[in-house]
Protein backbone atom coordinates (compact mmCIF):
# COMPACT_ATOMS: atom_id res chain seq x y z
CA UNK A 1 0.00 0.00 0.00
CA UNK A 2 1.31 3.45 -0.90
CA UNK A 3 2.34 5.64 1.98
CA UNK A 4 0.46 8.86 2.63
CA UNK A 5 2.28 12.07 3.58
CA UNK A 6 1.07 13.82 6.71
CA UNK A 7 2.30 17.04 8.31
CA UNK A 8 1.46 18.56 11.65
CA UNK A 9 3.05 20.58 14.43
CA UNK A 10 4.37 18.40 17.23
CA UNK A 11 5.19 20.24 20.43
CA UNK A 12 5.75 23.43 18.49
CA UNK A 13 7.86 21.99 15.66
CA UNK A 14 6.74 21.21 12.12
CA UNK A 15 6.98 17.48 11.53
CA UNK A 16 6.22 15.32 8.53
CA UNK A 17 5.93 11.60 8.06
CA UNK A 18 4.85 9.04 5.50
CA UNK A 19 2.22 6.79 7.03
CA UNK A 20 0.04 3.86 6.07
CA UNK A 21 -3.50 5.13 5.59
CA UNK A 22 -4.97 3.29 8.63
CA UNK A 23 -1.97 4.08 10.84
CA UNK A 24 -2.77 5.52 14.23
CA UNK A 25 -1.34 8.77 15.51
CA UNK A 26 0.26 6.79 18.34
CA UNK A 27 2.16 4.61 15.88
CA UNK A 28 3.32 7.66 13.95
CA UNK A 29 4.47 9.45 17.08
CA UNK A 30 6.33 6.50 18.54
CA UNK A 31 7.69 4.64 15.52
CA UNK A 32 7.86 7.42 12.99
CA UNK A 33 8.81 10.47 15.02
CA UNK A 34 10.44 8.98 18.10
CA UNK A 35 8.16 10.56 20.70
CA UNK A 36 7.78 7.83 23.28
CA UNK A 37 5.78 9.79 25.87
CA UNK A 38 2.36 8.48 24.78
CA UNK A 39 2.10 4.73 25.41
CA UNK A 40 0.14 1.85 23.98
CA UNK A 41 -2.06 0.48 26.75
CA UNK A 42 -5.45 -1.06 26.07
CA UNK A 43 -5.97 -0.02 22.45
CA UNK A 44 -9.65 0.48 23.31
CA UNK A 45 -9.88 3.97 24.76
CA UNK A 46 -10.22 2.73 28.32
CA UNK A 47 -6.84 3.47 29.91
CA UNK A 48 -5.80 6.92 28.65
CA UNK A 49 -2.03 6.28 28.48
CA UNK A 50 -1.94 7.29 24.82
CA UNK A 51 -3.62 10.66 25.46
CA UNK A 52 -2.23 13.62 23.53
CA UNK A 53 -3.61 17.09 22.88
CA UNK A 54 -4.93 17.75 19.39
CA UNK A 55 -5.56 21.46 18.94
CA UNK A 56 -5.57 21.72 22.72
CA UNK A 57 -8.15 19.00 23.38
CA UNK A 58 -7.32 15.62 24.89
CA UNK A 59 -7.58 12.83 22.37
CA UNK A 60 -6.66 9.15 22.39
CA UNK A 61 -3.84 8.72 19.91
CA UNK A 62 -4.31 4.94 19.68
CA UNK A 63 -7.81 5.52 18.26
CA UNK A 64 -6.89 8.47 16.02
CA UNK A 65 -5.92 8.12 12.38
CA UNK A 66 -2.69 9.97 11.64
CA UNK A 67 -4.11 11.30 8.40
CA UNK A 68 -6.88 13.04 10.35
CA UNK A 69 -4.20 15.15 12.07
CA UNK A 70 -3.00 16.89 8.92
CA UNK A 71 -2.21 20.52 9.71
CA UNK A 72 -3.14 20.23 13.38
CA UNK A 73 -1.30 21.02 16.60
CA UNK A 74 -0.22 17.91 18.51
CA UNK A 75 1.14 18.21 22.02
CA UNK A 76 2.52 15.39 24.11
CA UNK A 77 4.06 15.21 27.56
CA UNK A 78 7.48 15.33 25.86
CA UNK A 79 6.92 18.98 25.06
CA UNK A 80 6.03 20.14 28.56
CA UNK A 81 9.48 20.73 30.04
CA UNK A 82 11.59 23.66 28.94
CA UNK A 83 15.00 22.03 28.74
CA UNK A 84 15.98 21.11 32.30
CA UNK A 85 13.15 23.23 33.72
CA UNK A 86 10.15 21.10 34.50
CA UNK A 87 6.60 22.22 33.81
CA UNK A 88 4.82 23.06 37.10
CA UNK A 89 2.68 19.95 36.66
CA UNK A 90 5.75 17.76 36.28
CA UNK A 91 7.36 19.36 39.32
CA UNK A 92 4.20 18.86 41.34
CA UNK A 93 3.99 15.21 40.27
CA UNK A 94 7.55 14.75 41.50
CA UNK A 95 6.94 16.58 44.77
CA UNK A 96 3.80 14.55 45.52
CA UNK A 97 5.25 11.18 44.47
CA UNK A 98 2.48 11.05 41.88
CA UNK A 99 4.42 8.71 39.63
CA UNK A 100 5.48 5.24 40.66
CA UNK A 101 5.93 2.98 37.64
CA UNK A 102 5.35 6.02 35.43
CA UNK A 103 3.36 4.29 32.72
CA UNK A 104 0.23 6.37 33.22
CA UNK A 105 2.13 9.60 33.91
CA UNK A 106 2.33 11.09 30.40
CA UNK A 107 -1.41 10.62 29.95
CA UNK A 108 -2.15 12.04 33.39
CA UNK A 109 0.05 15.06 32.74
CA UNK A 110 -1.61 15.63 29.39
CA UNK A 111 -5.20 15.61 30.64
CA UNK A 112 -4.14 17.74 33.61
CA UNK A 113 -2.56 20.22 31.25
CA UNK A 114 -5.76 20.39 29.21
CA UNK A 115 -7.77 20.95 32.37
CA UNK A 116 -5.58 23.76 33.68
CA UNK A 117 -5.47 25.50 30.32
CA UNK A 118 -9.23 26.05 30.37
CA UNK A 119 -9.78 26.05 34.13
CA UNK A 120 -6.76 27.36 36.07
CA UNK A 121 -8.49 26.91 39.43
CA UNK A 122 -10.26 23.56 39.33
CA UNK A 123 -12.06 22.02 42.26
CA UNK A 124 -11.11 18.57 43.45
CA UNK A 125 -14.19 17.14 41.72
CA UNK A 126 -13.17 18.80 38.47
CA UNK A 127 -9.72 17.24 38.73
CA UNK A 128 -11.28 13.83 39.39
CA UNK A 129 -13.51 14.30 36.35
CA UNK A 130 -10.55 15.41 34.20
CA UNK A 131 -8.52 12.28 34.96
CA UNK A 132 -11.52 9.94 34.89
CA UNK A 133 -10.48 8.51 31.53
CA UNK A 134 -6.98 7.67 32.75
CA UNK A 135 -6.22 4.55 34.73
CA UNK A 136 -3.43 4.30 37.29
CA UNK A 137 -2.72 0.84 38.68
CA UNK A 138 0.08 1.48 41.15
CA UNK A 139 0.57 5.05 42.38
CA UNK A 140 -3.01 5.59 43.48
CA UNK A 141 -5.10 8.54 42.49
CA UNK A 142 -4.78 10.69 45.61
CA UNK A 143 -1.16 11.80 45.00
CA UNK A 144 -2.04 12.57 41.37
CA UNK A 145 -5.05 14.67 42.38
CA UNK A 146 -2.97 16.47 45.01
CA UNK A 147 -0.23 17.19 42.46
CA UNK A 148 -2.66 18.67 39.96
CA UNK A 149 -4.31 20.84 42.61
CA UNK A 150 -0.88 22.01 43.76
CA UNK A 151 0.19 22.86 40.22
CA UNK A 152 -3.06 24.75 39.74
CA UNK A 153 -2.14 26.86 42.73
CA UNK A 154 1.39 27.60 41.56
CA UNK A 155 1.97 31.06 40.08
CA UNK A 156 3.95 29.63 37.15
CA UNK A 157 1.10 27.38 36.19
CA UNK A 158 -1.42 30.22 36.43
CA UNK A 159 0.73 32.50 34.29
CA UNK A 160 1.03 29.84 31.64
CA UNK A 161 -2.59 28.78 31.88
CA UNK A 162 -1.33 25.30 32.59
CA UNK A 163 0.15 25.12 29.11
CA UNK A 164 3.70 25.19 27.87
CA UNK A 165 5.48 27.69 30.07
CA UNK A 166 8.41 28.07 27.73
Amino acid sequence: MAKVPVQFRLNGSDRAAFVDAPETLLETLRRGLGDFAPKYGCGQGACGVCTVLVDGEPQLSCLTLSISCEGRQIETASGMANGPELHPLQAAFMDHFAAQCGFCTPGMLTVARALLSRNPNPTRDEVVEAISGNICRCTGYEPIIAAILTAAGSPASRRAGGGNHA
Partner: protein
Amino acid sequence: MLDVRSCASLSEAAGILSGDRQAHLIGGGTLVMREVNEGRLTSGTLVRVTDPAFRQMSAGGARIEIGAGVTMAMVLANRDLAFLHPAARAIGGPAVRTMATVGGNLFAQTPYGDFTVALLALDAQIVVQAGYSSGRGIPIEEFLAARERGGQGLVTAVQFARPQNAGDFRFRKISRVKPKGISLMSIAALLPAAGGRISQPRIAYGAMAPTPVRARGVERALEGKTLDAGAIHAARQAALEGCRPATDAIASEWYRREVLPVHLGRLLAGEER
Protein backbone atom coordinates in the same frame (compact mmCIF):
# COMPACT_ATOMS: atom_id res chain seq x y z
CA MET B 1 -5.61 -4.92 3.57
CA LEU B 2 -7.29 -1.98 5.19
CA ASP B 3 -7.64 1.27 3.27
CA VAL B 4 -9.01 4.71 4.15
CA ARG B 5 -11.18 6.88 1.92
CA SER B 6 -11.69 10.51 2.87
CA CYS B 7 -14.98 11.87 1.50
CA ALA B 8 -15.58 15.59 1.08
CA SER B 9 -19.33 15.14 0.75
CA LEU B 10 -21.99 13.13 2.55
CA SER B 11 -23.21 11.79 -0.80
CA GLU B 12 -19.83 10.36 -1.67
CA ALA B 13 -19.57 8.61 1.69
CA ALA B 14 -23.14 7.34 1.49
CA GLY B 15 -22.49 5.97 -1.98
CA ILE B 16 -19.47 3.99 -0.81
CA LEU B 17 -21.20 2.69 2.32
CA SER B 18 -24.30 1.64 0.39
CA GLY B 19 -22.40 -0.20 -2.30
CA ASP B 20 -19.62 -1.89 -0.38
CA ARG B 21 -20.34 -4.13 2.59
CA GLN B 22 -16.62 -4.09 3.42
CA ALA B 23 -16.79 -0.32 3.97
CA HIS B 24 -17.04 1.02 7.52
CA LEU B 25 -17.67 4.58 8.49
CA ILE B 26 -15.10 5.95 10.91
CA GLY B 27 -16.42 8.87 12.94
CA GLY B 28 -14.48 9.60 16.11
CA GLY B 29 -12.73 6.24 15.94
CA THR B 30 -13.73 5.06 19.40
CA LEU B 31 -15.57 2.02 18.02
CA VAL B 32 -13.93 1.25 14.68
CA MET B 33 -10.32 1.75 15.76
CA ARG B 34 -10.85 -0.61 18.67
CA GLU B 35 -11.69 -3.28 16.13
CA VAL B 36 -8.58 -2.38 14.12
CA ASN B 37 -6.33 -2.46 17.19
CA GLU B 38 -7.73 -5.81 18.29
CA GLY B 39 -7.16 -7.32 14.86
CA ARG B 40 -10.85 -7.93 14.20
CA LEU B 41 -10.97 -5.46 11.33
CA THR B 42 -8.11 -6.11 8.94
CA SER B 43 -9.58 -5.57 5.49
CA GLY B 44 -11.99 -3.30 3.69
CA THR B 45 -12.28 0.46 3.63
CA LEU B 46 -12.58 2.96 6.45
CA VAL B 47 -14.69 5.86 5.23
CA ARG B 48 -13.93 9.29 6.69
CA VAL B 49 -16.34 12.19 6.22
CA THR B 50 -14.79 15.64 6.06
CA ASP B 51 -17.99 17.41 4.94
CA PRO B 52 -18.64 20.20 7.52
CA ALA B 53 -22.38 19.37 7.35
CA PHE B 54 -21.59 16.15 9.20
CA ARG B 55 -20.66 18.16 12.31
CA GLN B 56 -23.37 20.81 12.23
CA MET B 57 -25.99 21.40 14.89
CA SER B 58 -29.27 23.24 14.79
CA ALA B 59 -30.27 23.36 18.41
CA GLY B 60 -31.90 26.74 18.99
CA GLY B 61 -35.47 25.96 18.00
CA ALA B 62 -38.26 23.56 18.84
CA ARG B 63 -36.93 20.95 16.42
CA ILE B 64 -33.33 19.97 17.05
CA GLU B 65 -30.98 18.45 14.50
CA ILE B 66 -27.53 17.17 15.42
CA GLY B 67 -25.11 16.01 12.75
CA ALA B 68 -23.93 12.46 13.18
CA GLY B 69 -20.32 13.65 13.36
CA VAL B 70 -20.99 15.97 16.29
CA THR B 71 -18.97 14.87 19.31
CA MET B 72 -20.09 14.56 22.90
CA ALA B 73 -17.76 17.45 23.75
CA MET B 74 -19.58 19.60 21.18
CA VAL B 75 -22.94 18.69 22.73
CA LEU B 76 -21.55 19.63 26.15
CA ALA B 77 -20.36 22.98 24.78
CA ASN B 78 -23.82 23.85 23.46
CA ARG B 79 -26.01 25.60 26.03
CA ASP B 80 -29.15 24.99 23.99
CA LEU B 81 -28.62 21.27 24.61
CA ALA B 82 -28.21 21.58 28.39
CA PHE B 83 -30.96 19.01 28.99
CA LEU B 84 -28.78 16.48 27.12
CA HIS B 85 -25.58 17.25 28.99
CA PRO B 86 -26.02 14.49 31.59
CA ALA B 87 -26.31 11.95 28.75
CA ALA B 88 -23.29 13.35 26.88
CA ARG B 89 -21.24 13.49 30.08
CA ALA B 90 -22.02 9.82 30.67
CA ILE B 91 -19.87 8.87 27.69
CA GLY B 92 -16.28 8.00 28.65
CA GLY B 93 -13.74 10.44 30.01
CA PRO B 94 -12.80 13.82 28.50
CA ALA B 95 -10.61 12.34 25.73
CA VAL B 96 -13.33 9.92 24.64
CA ARG B 97 -15.88 12.74 24.62
CA THR B 98 -13.59 14.80 22.36
CA MET B 99 -13.78 11.98 19.82
CA ALA B 100 -17.00 9.98 20.31
CA THR B 101 -19.81 11.05 18.02
CA VAL B 102 -23.57 11.09 18.28
CA GLY B 103 -23.81 8.92 15.17
CA GLY B 104 -21.27 6.44 16.46
CA ASN B 105 -23.16 6.03 19.72
CA LEU B 106 -26.10 4.67 17.73
CA PHE B 107 -23.91 1.69 16.86
CA ALA B 108 -22.34 1.08 20.27
CA GLN B 109 -23.10 -2.39 21.56
CA THR B 110 -24.65 -2.87 24.97
CA PRO B 111 -23.67 -2.00 27.72
CA TYR B 112 -22.36 1.05 25.84
CA GLY B 113 -24.53 3.47 23.88
CA ASP B 114 -25.93 5.55 26.75
CA PHE B 115 -26.56 8.60 24.56
CA THR B 116 -28.75 6.48 22.30
CA VAL B 117 -30.94 5.72 25.31
CA ALA B 118 -31.58 9.43 25.64
CA LEU B 119 -32.38 9.68 21.93
CA LEU B 120 -34.83 6.78 22.26
CA ALA B 121 -36.68 8.53 25.06
CA LEU B 122 -36.76 11.68 22.92
CA ASP B 123 -38.36 9.74 20.03
CA ALA B 124 -35.56 10.75 17.67
CA GLN B 125 -35.59 10.29 13.93
CA ILE B 126 -32.36 8.92 12.49
CA VAL B 127 -31.56 10.52 9.15
CA VAL B 128 -30.02 7.89 6.86
CA GLN B 129 -28.68 8.61 3.41
CA ALA B 130 -28.45 5.64 1.09
CA GLY B 131 -26.48 5.98 -2.11
CA TYR B 132 -26.55 9.40 -3.68
CA SER B 133 -30.18 10.11 -2.77
CA SER B 134 -31.16 12.57 -0.06
CA GLY B 135 -31.50 11.41 3.52
CA ARG B 136 -34.72 10.05 5.02
CA GLY B 137 -35.79 9.94 8.63
CA ILE B 138 -36.24 6.57 10.32
CA PRO B 139 -37.83 6.22 13.76
CA ILE B 140 -35.07 5.30 16.20
CA GLU B 141 -36.78 2.07 17.28
CA GLU B 142 -36.94 0.93 13.67
CA PHE B 143 -33.33 1.92 13.20
CA LEU B 144 -32.16 -0.01 16.26
CA ALA B 145 -34.13 -3.10 15.23
CA ALA B 146 -32.41 -3.08 11.82
CA ARG B 147 -29.00 -2.00 13.06
CA GLU B 148 -27.32 -5.39 13.07
CA ARG B 149 -28.19 -6.04 9.44
CA GLY B 150 -26.06 -3.08 8.39
CA GLY B 151 -25.79 -1.78 4.86
CA GLN B 152 -28.33 0.99 5.45
CA GLY B 153 -26.06 3.73 4.17
CA LEU B 154 -24.76 6.71 6.07
CA VAL B 155 -26.35 8.09 9.22
CA THR B 156 -26.06 11.82 8.64
CA ALA B 157 -27.99 13.31 11.59
CA VAL B 158 -30.49 12.79 14.38
CA GLN B 159 -33.61 14.93 14.83
CA PHE B 160 -35.98 15.29 17.74
CA ALA B 161 -38.36 17.74 19.34
CA ARG B 162 -37.06 19.85 22.21
CA PRO B 163 -38.81 18.93 25.47
CA GLN B 164 -41.30 21.70 26.31
CA ASN B 165 -39.70 22.10 29.72
CA ALA B 166 -36.10 21.15 30.42
CA GLY B 167 -37.30 19.40 33.56
CA ASP B 168 -39.45 17.06 31.47
CA PHE B 169 -36.36 15.13 30.45
CA ARG B 170 -34.36 13.10 32.91
CA PHE B 171 -31.36 10.84 32.44
CA ARG B 172 -29.34 8.67 34.74
CA LYS B 173 -26.45 6.31 34.17
CA ILE B 174 -25.78 3.79 36.90
CA SER B 175 -22.22 2.47 37.11
CA ARG B 176 -20.05 1.01 39.81
CA VAL B 177 -17.05 3.25 39.12
CA LYS B 178 -17.51 7.00 39.49
CA PRO B 179 -17.34 9.32 37.69
CA LYS B 180 -16.56 7.18 34.67
CA GLY B 181 -17.63 3.58 34.50
CA ILE B 182 -19.34 1.24 32.10
CA SER B 183 -23.10 1.20 32.42
CA LEU B 184 -24.73 -1.18 34.78
CA MET B 185 -27.76 0.41 33.17
CA SER B 186 -28.95 3.79 32.00
CA ILE B 187 -32.44 5.23 32.15
CA ALA B 188 -33.89 8.15 30.21
CA ALA B 189 -37.36 9.54 30.76
CA LEU B 190 -39.39 12.12 28.90
CA LEU B 191 -42.24 13.12 31.17
CA PRO B 192 -44.40 15.80 29.55
CA ALA B 193 -47.20 17.01 31.79
CA ALA B 194 -50.55 18.54 30.91
CA GLY B 195 -52.57 20.00 33.74
CA GLY B 196 -50.27 18.35 36.24
CA ARG B 197 -50.72 14.89 34.74
CA ILE B 198 -48.18 12.93 32.75
CA SER B 199 -49.12 12.77 29.09
CA GLN B 200 -47.47 10.43 26.60
CA PRO B 201 -44.32 9.64 28.58
CA ARG B 202 -41.41 7.85 26.97
CA ILE B 203 -39.05 5.81 29.14
CA ALA B 204 -35.97 4.06 27.75
CA TYR B 205 -33.39 1.72 29.22
CA GLY B 206 -29.82 0.94 28.24
CA ALA B 207 -28.06 -2.35 29.10
CA MET B 208 -31.39 -3.99 29.93
CA ALA B 209 -31.73 -5.71 26.53
CA PRO B 210 -29.50 -6.34 23.48
CA THR B 211 -30.33 -2.82 22.26
CA PRO B 212 -31.78 0.19 24.09
CA VAL B 213 -35.46 -0.53 24.75
CA ARG B 214 -38.57 1.36 25.73
CA ALA B 215 -40.24 0.59 29.04
CA ARG B 216 -43.76 0.39 27.72
CA GLY B 217 -45.17 -0.99 30.97
CA VAL B 218 -43.83 2.03 32.84
CA GLU B 219 -45.20 4.38 30.20
CA ARG B 220 -48.67 2.83 30.61
CA ALA B 221 -48.42 3.02 34.38
CA LEU B 222 -47.59 6.73 34.29
CA GLU B 223 -50.00 7.84 31.57
CA GLY B 224 -52.54 10.33 32.91
CA LYS B 225 -51.16 10.18 36.45
CA THR B 226 -49.64 12.83 38.62
CA LEU B 227 -46.06 11.93 39.44
CA ASP B 228 -46.74 11.02 43.07
CA ALA B 229 -45.74 8.11 45.26
CA GLY B 230 -48.59 5.97 43.97
CA ALA B 231 -47.66 6.48 40.33
CA ILE B 232 -44.00 5.84 41.05
CA HIS B 233 -44.92 2.63 42.89
CA ALA B 234 -46.96 1.49 39.88
CA ALA B 235 -44.08 2.37 37.56
CA ARG B 236 -41.67 0.33 39.65
CA GLN B 237 -44.04 -2.63 39.52
CA ALA B 238 -44.01 -2.46 35.72
CA ALA B 239 -40.32 -1.66 35.40
CA LEU B 240 -39.11 -5.02 34.10
CA GLU B 241 -41.58 -5.46 31.26
CA GLY B 242 -39.69 -6.13 28.04
CA CYS B 243 -36.28 -6.39 29.72
CA ARG B 244 -33.78 -9.03 28.66
CA PRO B 245 -30.58 -8.00 30.44
CA ALA B 246 -27.35 -9.89 29.99
CA THR B 247 -24.84 -11.16 32.48
CA ASP B 248 -21.50 -9.54 31.76
CA ALA B 249 -18.38 -8.36 33.55
CA ILE B 250 -20.26 -5.37 34.95
CA ALA B 251 -23.27 -7.09 36.49
CA SER B 252 -25.35 -10.25 36.41
CA GLU B 253 -28.75 -10.42 34.80
CA TRP B 254 -30.21 -11.06 38.27
CA TYR B 255 -28.58 -7.94 39.73
CA ARG B 256 -29.73 -5.73 36.88
CA ARG B 257 -33.32 -6.94 37.34
CA GLU B 258 -33.13 -6.42 41.10
CA VAL B 259 -31.86 -2.84 41.02
CA LEU B 260 -33.66 -1.45 37.97
CA PRO B 261 -36.92 -0.66 39.84
CA VAL B 262 -34.92 1.05 42.58
CA HIS B 263 -33.08 3.36 40.17
CA LEU B 264 -36.21 3.99 38.12
CA GLY B 265 -38.06 5.00 41.27
CA ARG B 266 -35.28 7.39 42.26
CA LEU B 267 -35.19 8.95 38.79
CA LEU B 268 -38.95 9.51 38.76
CA ALA B 269 -38.90 10.89 42.29
CA GLY B 270 -36.14 13.31 41.35
CA GLU B 271 -33.76 11.93 43.94
CA GLU B 272 -30.09 12.57 43.41
CA ARG B 273 -29.04 8.93 43.82
